[in-house]
């Protein structure tokens, strides 16, 4: 059964004199990329089910500026940041949740210096909060006993020290969490960070996402779990390259939970 998503915008709530509990920062990938849009929708389904009062900026949202900053274009980054901060401050945003570790890192760490002070959390942290507050319940369902490995996004893990929230959620699914040889602080990048997502890689022996996919396939997972739309794309491409897409799925943590709950 396909429920229609309830996705209020900040503008609508503001007009009605309401303030949501949290702003869901969708990000560019989550808004436009076909694969990432599924993650966005899965997350919204969970938010709807848990009756979380949230809103999105919709057409008032603009790129966080992360890829511009990592490319070296500080001007463009700050223009984006200042514009976004103006919008969020006008709506008196206090708390932000996002499913993109790049937006998460930028909003959490780099916006405060430019006048944007919010409590920013990654969606895996937010889902864990919901779980511990009893606002969502989780059962393994179809993931019970499945071998799942988690690929640490650089901008969630090393960059911000968040390693356990996504893993706790996987464990809650009664799945068998298996670790790749490079994980947590020593996790290997998927190859998309630092604006690499938007350019061809430099000359080398192989692409980084292939190397990382090989590490994942070594431990024979049924699912490679990700927490970043860019990692998701890179790992999905890697699995396709190895012709394993029929036996190994690449899924975001939000998709795992939404699927387990039949949402």
């Amino acid at each position, binding site marked *: 059964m396909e429920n229609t998503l309830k996705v209020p915008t900040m503008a609508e709530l503001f007009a009605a004199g309401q303030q949501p509990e949290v702003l869901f920062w969708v990000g*560019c990938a989550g808004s436009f990329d076909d694969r990432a849009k599924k993650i966005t929708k899965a997350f919204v389904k969970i938010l709807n089910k848990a009756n979380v009062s949230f809103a999105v900026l919709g*057409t008032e949202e603009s790129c966080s500026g992360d890829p511009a900053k990592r490319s070296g274009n500080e001007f463009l980054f700050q223009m984006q940041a200042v514009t976004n901060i103006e919008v969020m401050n006008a709506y008196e945003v206090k708390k932000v949740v996002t499913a993109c570790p790049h937006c998460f890192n930028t909003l959490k760490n780099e916006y405060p*210096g430019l006048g944007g002070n919010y409590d920013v959390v990654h969606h895996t942290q937010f889902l864990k909060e919901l779980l511990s507050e009893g606002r969502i319940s989780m059962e393994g369902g179809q993931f019970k006993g499945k071998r799942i490995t988690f690929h640490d996004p650089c901008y969630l893990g090393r960059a911000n020290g968040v390693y356990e929230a996504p893993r706790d959620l996987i464990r809650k699914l009664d799945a068998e969490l298996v670790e790749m040889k490079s994980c947590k602080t020593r996790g290997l990048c998927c190859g998309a960070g630092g604006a690499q997502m938007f350019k061809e890689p*430099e*000359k*080398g022996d192989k692409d980084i996402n292939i190397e990382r996919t090989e590490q994942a396939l070594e431990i024979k997972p049924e699912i490679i779990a990700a927490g970043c739309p860019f990692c998701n794309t890179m790992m999905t491409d890697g699995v396709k390259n190895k012709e394993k897409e029929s036996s190994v799925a690449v899924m975001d943590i939000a998709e795992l939970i939404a699927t387990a709950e039949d949402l």
Partner: protein
Amino acid sequence: MAYIPNIIFALLLIGGLGFFAKNVLRLRRNINLGKDVEVSDNKPQRWKNMAKIALGQTKMVVRPIAGFLHVIVYVGFIVINIEVLEIIIDGLFGTHRIGLKFLNEGVYGFLIGSFEVLAVLVLVSVIVFWIRRNGIKIKRFLSKEMTGWPKSDGNIILYFEVVLMCLFLVMNATDSSFQALDSGNLISQYIAPLFSGLSESSLHLVERSAWWVHIIGILIFLNYLYYSKHLHILLAFPNTYYGKLVPQGQFKNLDAVTQEVKLMMDPSADPFAAPAEDAPDPEKFGASDVADLSWVQLLNSYTCTECGRCTSECPANQTGKMLSPRKIMMDTRDRLEEVGKNIDANNGIFVDDGKQLLGDYISHEELWACTSCNACVQACPVSIDPLSIIMDMRQYLVMEQSAAPSDLNNMMGNIENNGAPWPFNQMDRLNWSEES
């Protein structure tokens, strides 16, 4: 005449320390060529980091084999150097084993005994290190940047340590009064028989020679530091103190850009206003040479001991790209040394040599291969941040030279025009909510 050895010793000591002091001043001058940066915040955390990372070696043991051996050599280095204090006093005042005057035999024996045991452990570790560097093929010691001087440098340090440790043990073994004491000669008692055929005077000659060569060796080693990757034994401490305290993902916001952006966003600003007569030249964005980097980044480069853990964790390097974070640090130091020598040769003023760090040392290809994943920063056992240098140089390429790869220019054009890295209309940003 009886004072001649004392005088020679004092002169050697003054010479050795004086030359070292001169190099320390040069080091300081070179580091201060970097831009000022605010690092006076959060002192308690900084001291804690220094205690944990430099003193406590917490990041060394992430790799257990190299880490464990390194801890032995490090503890040996610090502890055995207590002996140098006795050597210096003996040398200056013509005494012999002055420690025995102040400590009872048991305590003195315990100290020297521990030095001897540590000396053997250091010898074993150093031999394993040598085999790791020259025998078994460990990838991070075989990279392109590790040929020539860097390779010899690594081995010379090991030879130094072997020679110094052997001299220390021989010095004890041939000291007949010390052997007669039979306290603290834990190891040297087994070396002493090797010299049993020698007459009393020859034995004394060997003992004196070992003693002199040992202290001279230490002074030479001290002065070798400045020219070597081994500088880390000193600079690891300030470097970990000044290391990054904010989350690794937090890159600094450029203040100069913030000023300009504020001006652009200010509706009352006059877009045609000419800059004031006395306005300073606009600041250069990013870094193309060492003087554009901060002094902490320059300190980083002198601290690097070329262990290559950064490079072996780098995803770009692992997949055969040109980028090696270690090379970024080595290039920065080499260029800084070149600039320093230029200043020395030109009476304290840098004369343009037509070279710079970007291009002459570090290529565009290396810089663009970085995924900014922070693996190199995480891997460094002494809190060096190669990523910050890469990012500063990218800023120069993009903001001063418009020299980004064309794909990235397209991406940035999209962000500017429609607020996303892809060419989608910002008005379509919420369309996903209505798609099934």
